[in-house]
């Protein structure tokens, strides 16, 4: 991982191309993190991938997290890796919840947080963005095929959000299937 001054240089480099992209930098537990403006995610990722001397060309993981009750509520983490130097860098885009205050809707029609898709830059993100959409309801603009991936296609709700209850899904047996009429539809 880059050390603290190195991380500042990276942040400076990204901001030179597009002012106001990097909001914060942090180094903890031996991990460097760049917190970026969600509008500037693609710029930051492209800069880190293509700039001479950086070479973070491998996206090892993309995942989302829900920081409820903090605001902004959601984050998308991009775990970048420079394979030549075996250095990892975490880029984190914080996304506000557009449905904040309205309460989340049981019908799944609330406005969803959005961020640009990075599939163009890193084709590996395709499944992982679908997963983040599936579980957190984060919409990736420009994703070629944004559908649910692990949950059933007709599922309503975003199960890994912190306000989604555990055990909310009734388990059907023959003795209680009468409680969920026409469950098979």
């Amino acid at each position, binding site marked *: 991982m880059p050390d603290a001054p190195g991380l500042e240089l990276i942040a400076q480099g990204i901001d030179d191309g597009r002012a106001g992209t990097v909001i914060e930098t942090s180094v903890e*537990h031996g991990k460097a993190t760049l917190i970026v403006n969600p509008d500037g995610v693609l710029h930051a990722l492209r800069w880190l991938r293509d700039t001479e001397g950086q070479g973070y*060309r491998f996206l090892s993981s993309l995942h989302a997290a829900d920081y409820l009750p903090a605001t902004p509520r959601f984050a998308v983490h991009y775990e970048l890796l420079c394979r030549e130097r075996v250095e990892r860098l975490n880029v984190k885009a914080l996304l506000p919840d557009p449905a904040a205050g309205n309460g989340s809707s049981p019908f799944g029609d609330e406005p969803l947080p959005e961020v640009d898709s990075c599939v163009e830059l*890193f*084709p590996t993100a395709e499944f992982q963005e679908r997963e983040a959409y599936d579980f957190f309801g984060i919409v990736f603009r420009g994703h070629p095929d944004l559908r649910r*991936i692990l949950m059933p296609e007709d599922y309503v709700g975003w199960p890994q959000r912190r306000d989604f209850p555990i055990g909310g899904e009734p388990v059907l047996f023959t003795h209680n299937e009468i409680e969920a009429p026409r469950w098979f539809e």
Partner: protein
Amino acid sequence: MPDETFRDEAEVTERGVSRLGEDPSAPVADAFAEVAEGELEGPGLEPEQEILTLNMGPHHPATHGVLRLIVTLQGERVIDLKPIVGYVHTGIEKSCEDQSYWKVIPFVERMDYLAYFFNAEAFCGCVERLLELDIPPRAQYLRVIHMELNRIHSHLVGLGTTALDLGAISMFWYCFRERDTILDMFEMSGGQRMHTRYFQVGGVFEDIPVGFERKLREFCEVMPSRIDQYEALLDRNEIFLRRTKDVGVVSRERLLELGVTGPLLRAAGEPWDLRKSPGYLSYGDFDFKVPVGTVGDGYDRYRVRIAEMRESVRIIEQAINGLPEGPWIADERKYVLPPRDELSTSMEALIHHFKLVTEGFRVPPGELYYSVEGPRGELGCFVMADGSSKPARVHFRDAAFVNLQAFRDMCVGGLIADLIQNLGMLDPNLGGIDR
């Protein structure tokens, strides 16, 4: 099959690769257009030019789990393929948020059920780094021994079932014979054959029992000759060679773009192995090689796995010879259960024991991504701690989940029989993919 057919397939594969990322229905439409221009003027479509969309799975013996494939075929050629996953999604990541840290370990072990020690190491290692807890050298060596045994075990299951799909049923029995001795050793050390919960935050649960070392040495002695036997069965087997050679080739650059890691990437000639990265357990103490392939076809993938098993045996031998004396779990009473014999004499030990078992230990707020080299590639674990005794988020980057994205590139342009071979050599584990 003459060699020219293979060359033809490779070209079609590249054409398929360039189309990825566009509208998924496009290749089908293209194929129709190609057919329509040339052939529809005449008496009609030949049977081998018709487009057939076939649903394979989720219950199919050759999909290695509940994987569903929507395959579009033209004759016997695959012209498009879409994997559909999620049939064994059990919400493990969500369930982990409701368990204290030490109770999460059995959950995550059941994700990729052939690589349970790796899952446990990814999670425990991540929590240890969040706690800034160092584990003693003996625990590191014991973890290495178990993880490498687990790697052999996983490769054996993958090899056995793949060979079974290709018609070599005897390979399946031989691979499972060695797998069973490995499981016997896991039973000795952890009490269970699978999902042993042997790795703990801070080290391992118990020291290895008497007799484990002898059994392990016997295994290390016999295993190389067993690998020779597998090679004797497969390396000159004409059916196996024809089914695997030059099949499913994807370029190294394309694999890297798709985030593929593990034996698949190494078979394409990229020597990338996280075990060689600094600060990851005590792998730096051991002398081992990273096997790489040249072409990146199914045969190379098989060869790389075989060579990795040999290297794993070497690592285990070095680890058992150099196994340091000392504690097998960190002496940190805030996170680690006190020894059983102290409970009857020490009040403090009893209090610690009670607190750890009821509430569990608390982890200071923070988040971390930690990855290990699993049998299928980079197995990453992201843990977000909010200061309580339960994780706020546990996320696994399963290698097979990411590797599956390369499956379309491997298969498009090839025969449907090659699809089975490609899937076997991809070695997916649906428990890990669906989590």
